[in-house]
Structure formats: C-alpha cells, structure tokens
C-alpha cells in the first residue's frame, strides 16, 4: 500500500471555498488524491464531504479556488464533460434509473464515450451498430465484474439494496473513469455485505482506477484506504495514514468520539 502514496497527483483541490448563502460548507480546502491510491474522506455529518464530491463533479461551482484533474482545471466545466474527462461517482442516496434494466443503466454510463448522434441512430448506420455492440459487451463485462452478471435484465429498482449499490458502481465504471468517487457505499449494509464491498473496491483499485471514498464505517476505512483526510466544518483537520489519523486527538474529539479507547 505504501508504494503508491508517492504517486503523482490525479486530483488536486487548491484553496477551495464553497458558500451557500451564509453557510460556509467548504473553507479554504487543499486536497490531493494521487494516482492509484484509495483515499478516504471522513468527518462528522455536515462537514462538507459530499460537497467536495459535488465540487469535483461540477454539480457546484466553487465560490473560490481551483479544482484540477490530471493537471487541468476542471471547475467551470459542464458536469457531463467532467465525466468524459474521467471522473465518475456514486451517490449517498442511491440514484439509479429505477425503471430501466441493470444493463441499460450501465449502458447509459458507457454512452458517455459514444459518438453517434441522432441521425446515425435514427438511420441505423453501421458505426452506430458497432458502438452499440461494443457498449453492450462492456456493460456485461462490468456487471460480471461487480458480481451481478446474472441480473442484467432485471429492473434497477427490483434489485436488492446491496446489488443496487453494485450496479451504481458498475454504471460509474462504464464511463471509464480514472477517478472513482464513492459516497458512503457501505451505508445501510450489514457486515457481510460490507466485507464483499470492500473486496470490490480493492479490485477496482487494482484494475487501475483511483478511488476517493467517503465512509462512516471506520472498520472499512481503516482497512482499505491508503490515506485518509478528515474534514470538520469544511476544513481539513487531519490527513495521513489510517492509523495516524485514528489516533489524532482532534479527530477523536470531532468525529470518533471515544477518547478512552483510542490509545
């Protein structure tokens, strides 16, 4: 794990501030995610973690500061262009296309890199057919990869909760991201499910995709991440390897809240 921590920066937040009316959700935040690592973002509720995701994916434009991905500034870009650049995400509350099949959900992700316009599609031109074939192949492969290859034709909303989380991940992966953002993927899962999710994240990372993870489950975070940053009131209060962060008194005070057992 330690071998990647010196990798080059894939995502860099530079003095990012985000205000909503009077609320300062993110306050002068610097953050760097390096190529190939699993980076965890933790912190109390309302600390601004999801807001970071929203800033990175272009849902919000920062009040101040700069977001760079792969060396290029991406704030100000349209959300779908950010996706094309190579950032994909899942949502804190699952947001699948419920009344579409699992396969179609993933296909929507795969379409991000497809080119056929309405003319090609409407006339059924050859390159459109080829793209369509390739997209389906990729989608099947990804559904297998996340472990729901046997449920391609089922509708998203009819999948069990855990499989829905997996489907969200497959859909995100279909956009061929360099960086995958996972927002509390283990929320509402039981321990067995968490364990298998953990392995999936590991495999994604091993396959070459950098992962930025928000999670409240300390067991999972501590075990899987290479580095951890802790947010509180929109500011970074600690950063480092899991073990370091876990014993940081400020983190215990603000987030973990069990000083007696920490040492």
């Amino acid at each position, binding site marked *: 794990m330690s071998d990647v921590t010196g990798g080059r920066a894939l995502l860099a937040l530079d003095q990012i501030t985000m205000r909503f009316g009077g609320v300062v959700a993110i306050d002068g935040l610097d953050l760097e995610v390096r190529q190939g690592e699993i980076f965890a973002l933790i912190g109390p509720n309302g600390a601004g973690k999801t807001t970071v995701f929203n800033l990175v994916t272009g849902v919000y434009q920062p009040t101040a500061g700069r977001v760079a991905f792969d060396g290029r500034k991406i704030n100000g870009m349209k959300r779908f262009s950010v996706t094309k650049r190579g950032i994909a995400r899942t949502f804190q509350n699952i947001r699948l*296309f419920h009344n579409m099949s699992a396969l179609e959900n993933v296909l*929507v992700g795969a*379409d991000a890199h497809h080119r056929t316009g309405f003319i090609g599609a*409407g006339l059924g031109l050859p390159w459109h057919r080829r793209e369509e074939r390739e997209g389906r192949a990729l989608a099947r492969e990804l559904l297998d990869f996340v472990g729901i290859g046997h449920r391609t034709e089922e509708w998203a909303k009819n999948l069990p909760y855990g499989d829905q989380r997996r489907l969200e991940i497959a859909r995100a992966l279909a956009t061929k991201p360099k960086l995958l953002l996972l927002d509390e993927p283990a929320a509402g899962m039981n321990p067995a499910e968490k364990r298998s999710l953990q392995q999936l994240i590991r495999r994604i990372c091993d396959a070459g995709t950098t992962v930025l993870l928000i999670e409240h489950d300390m067991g999972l975070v501590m075990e899987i991440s290479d580095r951890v940053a802790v947010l509180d009131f929109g500011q970074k209060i600690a950063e480092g390897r899991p073990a370091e962060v876990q014993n940081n008194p400020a983190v215990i005070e603000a987030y973990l809240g069990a000083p007696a057992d920490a040492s």
Partner: protein
Amino acid sequence: MSHSKNTTGIGPVRAAMRKITTPFDEMRDWWGRAPGWVRWTVYGLVIVAALLAPSDSVGAFMSPESDWATILFYPIGVFVLLAIGLNVVVGQAGLLDLGFVAFFAIGGYVMAVIGTELGWNFWEIIVVAVLISSLSGIILGAPTLRLRGDYLAIVTLGFGEIVRLVAQNTDAIGGPRGINSIPHPPDMSDIEIIPDLQPFTYGVIDPRPYYYLLVALCVLVIIFARRLEKSRVGRAWAAIREDEDAAEIMGVPTFRFKLLAFAIGAAIGGATGTVFAAKMISIVPNNFPFILSATILAAVVLGGSGNLPGVILGAFLVGWLPERFRGFEDYRVLLFGGVLVLMMIVRPQGLLPSRQRSAEFAEGSGMGGMGAEVATPTAKAEVSSR
C-alpha cells in the same frame, strides 16, 4: 381508511374497464415475447390495413355523417402524426409541452407563405418547413429547457399562443384572414391503382392521396423514432426522465438531448403542418388554438405516453370518436371532457402503456409522495439534491 377506498365507489366502472384493458396488457406481454417473423407480419398487416382504410364500406360504419377519407386525413391522420411527434417530447424525454400546436402552425405557415409567395413546390417546402420548425423548437428550448418541468408547461403554452397571435396580428401573412390558395403538391404520377383512385395525384376533392402521404410520413417517422428509442439517444432520454441530475453526472449532456427532443418533435409537427396546409388550401390562425395542443397531449397520455402503438391508438380514438358521435352535436366536447377524467381515474397509465410506465404505476410513486396515507418518501428526492 385508505385501503378499502380504492375498491368502492366506481367499482363497476373499474371492473368493466379492467375487462377492456386486461387484454391490452396481455397483448403487450405477448408482443414482447413474439418472434421476429410474427412482428414483421403484423407490421405488414397494419400497413395494408392503413392503405385499405379509406374505403366507402369502412367509412359507412366509421363516419356515416361525413367523408371518411377526409376524416382519415384530418383529424385522424394529422392527430396521429402530431401525437407521434409530441410523444418524442413528452413520452420519451419527459418534457411537458403544452404548446405543441405552435410547430404545426409554423409548418403550415411556411407552406402557405412560400407556396403562395415564392411558388416553390411542396417537396421543396417541406424540407424548409422541417428546418424552420425545428429551429423554432431550438429557439424556444434554448432559454427555457433549463427550467423546472412545470415551468416549461406554462412557457410552452405561452409560446403556442404567441405563434398564433403573431400570425393573427401580422398583416404581411394575412393577419386574421390567413392565407388562401395554397398550392397542392405537384402530381407525382397519374397512375390509377384501382378505378377512381390515383394515389399520387393531389387534387382538391379526393383526400386519399394526402392520406397516403401522411401514412408514408408516419411509417418513416415511426421507424426513425423506434430506432432512436432503442439507441443511445433513447436511453439518454429515459435517463433524463428518471433522474436528470444523475444522468448529467453519468455523462449525458442533458440539455443537448432535451433540445434534440424538442427539435425532433418540432420537426415532426412542422412536417404535419405542411401537409395540412397543402390539403386545406386555406389556413387561418384560428386553425391552431390551444385546445389542439391539449387534445394532442390528451391523445398521447390516453393512449399510453412513451409507447408508440399506444400513442397511435390514443390519437386515432381522439380524432375519430367525436366524428363517430356527431349525433351528440353540442355535447361532444362535454363528453370528451368527461371521458378524459374517467379514463384517467380508471387507467391513469393510458390504454397501452409501455412496460416501463405500467411499472411506475404498479409501484405507485408517480406523484412524489402525495399518495395520501400511502405516501412514498419525497424526502429522498429532497435530500439527494443536496
């Protein structure tokens, strides 16, 4: 007591409706499983039926009181084509358009103005009309498609009225008097298929050539729309309908696709308007009232928004029934209104809903949680937008 209410009150109506509609559902499921050759045979039969439709023996039953072939052209054929166009916007992309008649009007006026002023022929004009109406779709969509869905409703309604009123107040295009003496399409051939039927000779009295023109347009548009539906474009529309924000983040340029839906819908509306104007000889702004937009929308929803066979059925019924029941005279609109309410109450998903739509209903969550006691969490939608 929420659970018992559902079955009381209009119970008998419901039971009767179920008898009528269950076969529809079964048919859809059968269709979903049917092998290719069956489908092609059915397509073939449908087209043949459409070609044979304007015969007097059919007409004697279908519209005893006016000319059946003319009725097949307008309202039926025109409604069907308009409904297919509106379905792209409403059914596929999920955008509420209450002013669809605007594009129909624009197509009609392009035909009328260019046809009478510049003397171009129909085939040249229809291309221009399609371009202009889709352009107007884009002009309307560009500032408004970023708005929330319900705001779009009033803005499109306004647009429909604006187009009509501008036509009415602009003397250069006839003002309230409209435009007369619109040229017919040039004859393509004067072959006579059966005695007394020259399907490619466009005159004043015989509406059948125009009807066949509409049928041809319908077939083309349906093929095009079906292909789109099953492609990347259709998936993008479905995704936008389901969750626009999530779609955008998954790489769908939502705005562009919504605009595309608007433009395609507008193009179809415009093409319909062109044929309409060429057949009618004379058009006036009052040919394009708001109620026509509402009627086409009703046709789409009544048939089953998002499902082409349903939409076509809906448009057919909405065009045909008032004609069939001419006997009721003044009461036709009254009945139409009542039937709309009744239909929505007993079968809100429409007569022939798509598989997807029926599912949305089975689950009972379309109204974002206003199912009274049996509400589903709106909280989800609210919180997730943070």
